[in-house]
């Protein structure tokens, strides 16, 4: 029987919180301090999330010692504030932050508790800015209530743009990357920079995160903005930020999400070439990237080709677009025996995913209960959720789609490694 390790969870709506998005947006911006207007526990949850990211960066040799880490201070809402309001507590907290950290600016994230209490955080931020003579910005989200992680991330970027940016003459061939994707040192951004080079473009800013005040002010001088999303929800918010910057400063943007899969990379290159009027660079880029992909396909195909694969999907379309996975499987020459839609999807999400699958594959699609037989005979399971059957060899698909040919190659290498594993060993390989 197909059993997801988390069988009791069906994601009906949002599954994240806007506050960590605010924090991530400026976590490595020199001089920034973030205040959560929330109970203290919300800060601990974010800290622990950040800790996992920190150790992942250590493991991948991407860790930068002494990198600026914005202090995260929590106003500390308690029961009594639900009766008398928490605005005064927030005012005092801002005063503490200004005195203690002497920040260049403060960003306030609101919790669901602050939202329910109804504190006028925007007014408190404005008054504090006047009193302390430093920029104090608030973000119009309240925890999970009206916007998720990317909403918090977007609104922080927008607040920084409103506050710090002003029109500047464009610097030729410069790009601002909009989004996170592990920061400037991470493989995703490196992959993007590699593609930009074909067009003679140089990423001179990363926004809103990993940016000093000087870099933030340089954003309007960019010749182009390039959104870094990775899934529908992330892209829609980064696109909105790009669109805002275009409207405010006339900086055009590439209206395309990160290049995902080979077809996606080709489309991205074409769109970029068209936008810049540099079509000859597109041909060169395609040729070199295809060669890079082919080399890996030859290596991986020999190891994976004979495998019978089952794809298990438990993420809704908003969080998982499967097209690049079919492309990956096609390159490796495997037989896709079936697709199992896990119980975590609602009926509506399942129907939408079925429609999407029909556009991509002829492989049979099963519900969780029906999929037991096909799973039984599969050699490899490619999945969005860990399955309890740990005797099966599982490739756990990344939450954010891999960027460019480099990202595709990495997942392909992992799938090949999984296929080489003795079947009886089973286990999971994480695709990131």
């Amino acid at each position, binding site marked *: 029987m197909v059993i997801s390790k988390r069988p*009791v*969870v069906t994601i009906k709506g949002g599954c994240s919180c806007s506050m960590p998005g605010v924090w991530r947006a400026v976590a490595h911006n020199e001089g920034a301090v973030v205040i959560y207007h929330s109970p203290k526990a919300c800060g601990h949850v974010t800290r*622990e999330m950040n800790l996992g990211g920190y150790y992942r960066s250590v493991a991948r040799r991407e860790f930068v010692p002494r990198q600026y880490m914005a202090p995260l201070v929590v106003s500390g809402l308690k029961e009594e504030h639900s009766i008398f309001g928490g605005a005064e507590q927030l005012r005092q907290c801002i005063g503490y932050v200004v005195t203690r950290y002497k920040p260049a600016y403060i960003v306030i994230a609101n919790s669901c508790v602050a939202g329910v209490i109804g504190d006028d955080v925007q007014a408190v931020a404005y008054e504090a800015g006047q009193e302390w003579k430093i920029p104090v910005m608030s973000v119009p989200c309240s925890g999970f209530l009206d916007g998720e992680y990317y909403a918090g991330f977007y609104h922080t970027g927008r607040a920084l743009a409103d506050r710090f940016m002003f029109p500047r003459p464009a610097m030729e061939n410069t790009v601002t990357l909009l989004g996170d994707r592990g920061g400037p040192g991470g493989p995703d951004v490196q992959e993007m920079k590699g593609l930009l080079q074909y067009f003679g473009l140089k990423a001179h800013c990363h926004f809103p995160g990993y940016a000093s005040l000087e870099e933030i002010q340089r954003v309007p001088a960019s010749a182009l903005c390039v959104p870094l999303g990775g899934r529908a929800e992330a892209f829609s918010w980064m696109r909105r930020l790009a669109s805002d910057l275009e409207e405010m400063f006339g900086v055009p943007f590439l209206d395309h999400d990160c290049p995902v899969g080979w077809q996606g990379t080709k489309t991205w290159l074409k769109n970029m070439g068209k936008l810049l009027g540099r079509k000859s660079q597109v041909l060169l880029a395609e040729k070199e990237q295809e060669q890079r992909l082919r080399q890996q396909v030859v290596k991986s195909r020999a190891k994976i080709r004979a495998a019978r694969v089952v794809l298990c999907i438990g993420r809704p379309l908003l969080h998982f677009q499967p097209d690049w996975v079919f492309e990956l499987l096609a390159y490796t020459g495997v037989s896709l025996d079936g697709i199992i839609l896990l119980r975590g999807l609602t009926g509506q999400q399942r129907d939408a995913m079925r429609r999407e699958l029909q556009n991509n594959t002829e492989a049979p699609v099963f519900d969780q209960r029906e999929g037991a037989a096909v799973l039984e005979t599969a050699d490899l399971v490619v999945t969005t959720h860990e399955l309890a059957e740990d005797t099966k060899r599982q490739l756990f698909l990344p939450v954010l789609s891999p960027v460019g040919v480099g990202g595709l190659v990495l997942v392909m290498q992992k799938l090949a490694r999984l296929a080489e594993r003795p079947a009886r060993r089973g286990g999971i390989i994480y695709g990131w």
Partner: protein
Amino acid sequence: MGGESQWGNVCAQVDTCALTGAAAFFAGIPDAVIVANGPLWCYFYALRYLEKPCPKVGARFYCSQPDNNAVVYGTEECLSGILQSIRRNSRPPVLLIENSCAIGLIGDDIAGIAGRADMPCPVVCIDSGGLTGGFWEGYRAAARAYLDVMPPQRRSEVQPRTVNLLGCTIGYYNAANDIRELKRILALAGYQILACPGAGSGIEEITTMTRAELNIVVHEELGLEIAQYLQQEYGMPYLSLPPPYGIEGSLDWLKALGQMVRMDDRSLQAVQREAGDLERQMRTAVLEMQQIWGELCFPRTLVAAPSSVALGMARAVRSEWADTGPLTVVLHDGRLPHQPLDYIDMILDGQSDSQAVERQLTGLAGGLLLASCNEKAILRQQAAPVAVCQNIALPVCDEVILSDRPFMGLRGACHMTERLWNQYIDFCQR
């Protein structure tokens, strides 16, 4: 001592949410079902925290996922749906419904909703979001609410040489191994353990726990209030001491326990024999290494953990495990001891002294750090290398423990000596 501020950088603090602490108590009751009446984000965090020590908890931990409408009109619809599903699919011995902070504010009658759902088991309802506090507050609130809803039997008969362990949780680092070792040394000393609420005991064991001669508070920050309540309501005496770390520490702990229940000193013979054997074994191994690598000696030591763990470990470091200069203790839960302790040079409140904690960490070059991965990450970010880092508290992101190797008790003393020495030797070779 004392807090510099009620604020401070939470990146230098260690805690979780009361939602996690309350869920941890119930996750420690076999087959108990937990419903987080709150958003998925808070639920997923608590689930991820508990899945590490309790891998199957996901099958009995649910989330009601209220949306914006529910915050306005109430959570009855989404909560009732989950309760019906539980009712159809399982027969849990007890059910916890815990409100997240925002949901707690809207004032739903959770007990009423549970009553209308006609659940086939006792239902415990509490507010346990961040407004309640952190892990410790959540655990205590859940334990107390459990005892209110499912009161133990009146104390009519007392079985001699029986004890309960209070304040234990699967939500502490290496807890399963520590609890196993505690039970082993207690059994070796002639005690029978009746119940360990929140860390493995079922509802029957908790119901009959009042037959025990004594309650032992293992982690005071979790179990003291329960012990006081049981003393007040059931007349059960209790003993609260720092947990037994080190060989001497373990023997002292058992001796104190023996005095409390008037056990004959001869009951410790088996434990003393094992302790003597282990000491000889450790001494031989350590002396061999000392001739090559010198003494296990640190200019400074910092111990950061929940208060019972930190104070107990600090004592063992000073009295048994190493030579050290100034020893600083950071209490993650901020529960400061009532009187100064002569083996500690400085005690910091982990909840409010974050600035001082960062300063102490920065000055720890070449020293010994017994803490969580949070303190290790701060050190690394500041590029301040220490000699030996040993995880003793959550969060832990850089270590796998699969073997039965406790920190507490006699075997724990052996294990810690082994770890400290091996890391020290490794440091000398870097």
